[in-house]
């Protein structure tokens, strides 16, 4: 077998293993093996590349690989589970950035001579998608990490400005390719094009608020795949095209699931600058009477229930209260209470955020139920414990005039007793008051989720 055929076969095996690896993610039992298989596929692709290409400078490759592996490995080990959304955002950005850099290097290697052919067009596409993914992900990271405000950042005519930049880039792209047909493309044109891509990424993500982050993270995930595919078109490599397409499809499906979880279109999430607690009418909040309870009372209610459903939200992650919550669930189960967890698709800051947090706290995954699986059971449930969730349990979603009209919610108000663990009566991300707080069968349990959970553990033991 000649060398180049062997390289192609290695690439083919690698692509097959990627598909098989993803296939194994369909069950928690096989998922870990699937991830390992995909990692092995990546190793094969790297080996094939090093075998199949003439390498002029090994030390540069070595330096890059060492630095990247070290940084990635340390970050993966150190990151807390509650910080997973920003970690994934950051990694996303690096993937997109790498693809954009490949495109830029190819531009220089072609002698700055881009013409209207697949090579020229895909280089510009690689810069556009890769650049937007990189800078957009960095903004998403900054927002999730709290370096930037989680509220939408808006300015007048924002969408118009974005459209102008995008159309400007199209014109610039045509100009770049047109100029290249006769003479070398001026590097300035290429630099402006790249800078515009980075600017567009920033502008597209700053107006998106905290609770819409699951959509953005999913979308950027999809883009990072498309950027890799573009890089594949540039260097004519099928394994890049295939793996990039798989990631692109994955991100897109998650994006659709997240949008459906909020009953909003992708366009509304991307350009609507929805939510944020900055411009909320606070005058009416707290004027109506609520029933509040202390840890002892809440412990009694929980301990004497037959069935309890816990509804976790982003507040659980913020307070890092997942381990204490697990202890509460364990104590209740020891008393014979049936305890289950209801997970809303957009709870938290990324798809599946709550599931990972609860897995970290050793809650078995078969106690976690999706909205569709558990929603009919609330009416038959004694007590619902809502921990740091708000909009996803707000009955206002059933009101066609509400800001969150039509959003699928967990029907917790149908349970016999609802306990809401929250720091205050402040509204959720959507900025609207929650009628659930004022219902007769609702008990407000005010305080920091972690402290409150610890108090509950003590009180349930004493019941």
């Amino acid at each position, binding site marked *: 077998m000649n060398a180049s055929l062997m390289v192609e076969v290695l690439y083919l095996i690698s692509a097959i293993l990627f598909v098989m690896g*993803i*296939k194994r993610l*369909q069950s*928690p*039992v096989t*998922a870990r093996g699937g*991830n390992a298989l*995909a990692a092995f596929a*990546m190793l094969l*692709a*790297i080996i094939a590349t090093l075998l199949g*290409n003439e390498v*002029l*400078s090994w030390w*540069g*490759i070595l*330096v*890059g*690989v060492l630095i*990247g*592996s070290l*940084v*990635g490995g340390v970050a*993966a080990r150190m990151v807390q589970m509650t910080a*997973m959304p920003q970690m994934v955002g950051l*990694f*996303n950005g*690096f*993937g997109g950035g*790498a*693809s954009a850099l*490949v495109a830029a*290097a190819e531009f220089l*290697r072609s002698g700055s001579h881009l013409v209207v052919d697949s090579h020229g067009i895909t280089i510009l596409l690689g810069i556009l998608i890769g650049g937007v993914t990189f800078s957009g992900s960095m903004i998403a990271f900054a927002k999730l990490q709290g370096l930037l405000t989680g509220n939408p950042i808006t300015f007048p005519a924002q969408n118009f400005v974005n459209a102008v930049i995008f159309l400007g880039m199209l014109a610039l792209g045509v100009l770049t390719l047109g100029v290249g047909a006769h003479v070398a493309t001026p590097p300035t044109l290429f630099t402006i094009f790249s800078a515009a891509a980075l600017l567009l990424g920033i502008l597209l993500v700053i107006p998106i608020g905290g609770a819409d982050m699951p959509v953005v993270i999913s979308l950027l995930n999809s883009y*990072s*795949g498309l950027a*890799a*595919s573009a890089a594949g078109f540039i*260097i004519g490599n*099928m394994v*890049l*095209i*295939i*793996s*990039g*397409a*798989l*990631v692109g*499809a*994955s991100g897109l*499906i*998650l994006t659709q*699931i997240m949008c459906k979880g909020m009953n909003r279109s992708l366009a509304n999430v991307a350009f609507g600058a929805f939510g944020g607690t900055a411009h909320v009418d606070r005058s009416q909040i707290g004027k109506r009477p609520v029933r509040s309870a202390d840890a002892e009372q809440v412990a009694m209610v929980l301990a004497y229930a037959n069935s309890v459903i816990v509804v976790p939200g982003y507040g659980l992650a913020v307070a890092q209260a997942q381990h204490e919550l697990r202890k509460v669930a364990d104590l209740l189960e020891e008393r014979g209470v049936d305890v289950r967890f209801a997970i809303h698709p957009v709870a938290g800051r990324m*798809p*599946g955020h709550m*599931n*990972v947090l609860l*897995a970290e706290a*050793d809650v078995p*995954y078969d106690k976690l139920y999706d909205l569709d699986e558990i929603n009919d059971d609330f009416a038959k449930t004694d007590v619902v414990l809502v921990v740091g969730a708000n909009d996803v349990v707000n009955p206002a979603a059933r009101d066609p005039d509400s800001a969150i009209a039509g959003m699928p919610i967990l029907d917790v108000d149908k349970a016999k007793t609802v306990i809401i663990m929250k720091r205050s009566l402040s509204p959720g991300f959507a900025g609207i008051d929650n009628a659930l707080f004022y219902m007769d069968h609702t008990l407000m349990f005010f305080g920091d989720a972690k402290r409150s959970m610890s108090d509950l553990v003590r009180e349930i033991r004493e019941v």
Partner: protein
Amino acid sequence: MGELMMGIYVFVLATLAGRELITKVPPTLHTPLMSGANAISGISIVGALVVAGQASGTTQTVLGILAIAMAMINVVGGFMVTDRMLKMFKRR
């Protein structure tokens, strides 16, 4: 059939295959799916290795090394953090 058309065929078919595979992933695994897919998008390491290996001149070399480092962060970090998460998923 030109190379571009061939690439488009492969891209479209892989997208469809991806759709079939990923719609069957349960919501409880959506975060690991995302970080795993993320690691796979680090496949741009292949492109980075090609351009870095053939780079001539300082600018191209720097771009290549930077691309390799970024892609490797994505690959190593992505697969490791996904493994860390999946290790935690336990049955009753």
